[in-house]
């Protein structure tokens, strides 16, 4: 048996200091960073099941490039994320790389919060503008300067439960959902699913909740199908076609009133209901695939239904941006571009998360074409309804949240479609009259 160790005061002090030193270095150096590695700090908001795919891709990059350590930092999606990016970029001591929504580019103060992309370094890393989907690549520029590297488009899609739809006789001989056209066919399909579900609402989408953007997503998928636009070409005046806008809103109200969709579901419960087989259909972005597969939900996907003539679906794009830094380390910068090129060139892997690659060579790769159910909706890429290019648009923007708040009570029946549209227009008027915090002449 040993007695208690004999510790003198000096030993104790020395030991504590050594511990403190170890703790201090432990804080300063992230786990996994060796002295010869270049560290790239990467912020993103990919918290849905696409976050797991990104984590794997970062891991694959680390294995192929042992000299670079990409430090992933996953932050909450939405307004808080863009607040953090703005704060970081304005201070000039920001992460080396961040993921962004392309439609937010117009409102973030490119040139102040974001640094321009060095096209020479990008080409050195093996990426050329010609390899990207042209309309998306064009959107990555502001006044001809490249500020973002888009790597996907993520449209609204229709998920369907193959079990329930099979029992309701909604599947074709190939086992795929028979496509619907127009309001009547859509309602008929939902009603048939409702019957086999014992009267439960068959459709789920994000319809309610704090800062909900689901109602905007659904409306911005339906309304452009009839050719409707939001703003005039120059983005200064409202150009909403009331009749077409109301037509879309009336359909949304009808879904709620006839018990075809559960208007009490927020984002989380809409996904949960579909995952658990308590909803036959889910209208959502394409990013829940990996999670649904993991949980074994019998499902497939198809394009958002064509209801009002066109085949549009709301979409935004994920892109890489470089938040503003006062002194960018050239070595880190080079490593950053290498990482970007790795992700973009392996877009076919990224498509596992559900998103449609913006990098054209990836679209033709056999492993992408073989992906199921991704290939069932990839044709939507030519029909995406992107946001108007104004400073208050983009994912989790004031525009989305205001429209979500205006339309959510329409689905629940607390507001008429006319009242909902009036509320949306009122907030759009306010947004148009509010000054842009990052005016163009400042760039």
């Amino acid at each position, binding site marked *: 048996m040993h007695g208690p160790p004999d510790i003198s005061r000096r030993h104790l002090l020395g030991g504590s200091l050594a511990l403190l030193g170890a703790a201090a270095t432990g804080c300063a150096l992230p786990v996994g960073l060796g002295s010869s590695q270049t560290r790239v700090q990467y912020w993103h908001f990919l918290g849905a099941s696409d976050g797991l795919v990104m984590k794997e891709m970062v891991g694959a990059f680390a294995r192929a490039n042992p000299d670079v350590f990409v430090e992933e930092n996953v932050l909450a999606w939405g307004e808080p994320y863009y607040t953090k990016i703005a*704060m970081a970029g304005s201070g000039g001591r920001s992460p080396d790389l961040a993921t962004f929504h392309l439609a937010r580019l117009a409102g973030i103060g490119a040139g*102040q*919060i974001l640094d321009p992309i060095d096209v020479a370094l990008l080409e050195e890393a093996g990426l050329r503008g010609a390899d990207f989907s042209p309309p998306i690549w064009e959107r990555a520029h502001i006044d001809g300067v490249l500020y973002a590297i888009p790597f996907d488009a993520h449209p609204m899609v229709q998920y369907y439960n193959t079990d329930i739809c099979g029992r309701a006789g909604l599947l074709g001989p190939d086992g795929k959902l028979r496509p619907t056209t127009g309001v009547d066919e859509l309602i008929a399909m939902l009603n048939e699913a409702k019957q086999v579900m014992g009267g439960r609402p068959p459709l789920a989408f994000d319809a309610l909740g704090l*800062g909900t953007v689901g109602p905007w997503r659904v409306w911005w998928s339906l309304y452009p199908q009839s050719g409707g636009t939001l703003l005039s070409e120059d983005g200064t005046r409202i150009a909403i076609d009331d009749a077409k806008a109301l037509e879309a809103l009336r359909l949304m109200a009808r879904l709620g009133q006839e018990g075809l969709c559960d208007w009490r579901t927020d984002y989380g419960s809409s996904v949960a209901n579909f995952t658990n087989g308590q909803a036959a259909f889910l209208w959502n972005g394409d990013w829940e695939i990996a999670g649904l597969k993991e949980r074994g939900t019998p499902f497939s996907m198809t394009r958002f239904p064509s209801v009002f003539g066109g085949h549009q679906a709301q979409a935004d794009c994920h892109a890489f941006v470089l938040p503003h830094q006062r002194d960018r380390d050239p070595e880190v910068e080079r490593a950053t571009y290498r990482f970007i090129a790795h992700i973009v060139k392996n877009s076919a892997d990224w498509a596992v998360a559900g998103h449609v690659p913006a990098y054209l060579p990836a679209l033709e790769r056999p492993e992408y074409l073989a992906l199921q159910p991704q290939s069932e909706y990839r044709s939507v890429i030519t029909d995406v309804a992107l946001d108007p290019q104004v400073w208050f648009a983009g994912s989790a923007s004031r525009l989305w949240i205001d429209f979500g708040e205006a339309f959510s009570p329409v689905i629940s029946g607390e507001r008429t479609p006319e009242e909902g549209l009036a509320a949306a227009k009122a907030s759009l008027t306010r947004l148009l009259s*509010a000054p842009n*915090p990052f005016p163009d002449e400042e760039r």
Partner: protein
Amino acid sequence: MTTTVAAPVTAAPVTKAKVRRGWTQHGLLFVAPFLIVYAVFLIWPTLLGLQMSFSSVNIAGGNDRFVGFDNYAEAFSDPRMWRSLWNTLVFTVLSTIPLVFLGLVFALLVHNLRFMQWLWRLSFFGPFLLPSAVVSLLWLQMIYPPDFGLLNGTLGTDILWLGDPSVAMWSVVLTTVWWTVGFNFLLYLAALQSIPQHLYEAAAIDGATAWDKLRSITLPLLRRTTALIVVLQLVASLKVFDQIYLMTGGGPEDSTRPIIEYAYDVGFTGYRIGYASAVSYILFVLIVIVSLAQLRLFRKREEVTS
């Protein structure tokens, strides 16, 4: 909202001129560290904020043009600003009344209960020790959820506590009262314990009932404490932010968004620091007016009674 302002200590009257001179000579040196921190972290930002409120500066420090009263003009014609200001006032009225009244009631109860006093003290004051995030998550995730929450489960109701625009503010008030009543309770309890016992003995000899004692001795002697509590509570309630931001984010339909959250929204989420500063100054002026009016009201009443 945290009511962590300590009760001011009334300075003992200084009579000797010698002492007073010594105070001015050396005292400044002693308070210098505090004064420097005060100037750097309070006075300077306050002035800077005032200057910003007259500019169109954005979060990156760019677009810094002098715009005169444009921000104030925009704020006064902004329905969202008025809505959030109204919400702040509604919250202040709804929360201050129960917080002061219940604080007094609980203090009287504990003061007169002779068994397990420590338990009552702890249970009324305990919630005040919790951080705002813990309180908000507790109520948000366990008490208010409509489907499996404690409240609907116990009452057998089906109320959207935080999801119904006509109920949400009451729910926020309920949470706030539960959380912060302990502070006022403690101030009242301390004041009760400092009332000399012989007053009650004298009153008892004169044949006063318990009600008479409360009305003629306790309440009048608590007047100064009440004045203090009301001022602290009004200021704290006007500054409400944490629990609303965490529990409802200002929703549903803007029914709970307080003006501080609005300033945060337009400044940090909307990137317009100049406009956010103007909104903050509107609240600042409101708080100053309320505090001054309140102090004056109580001073007058005291002069009348003395």
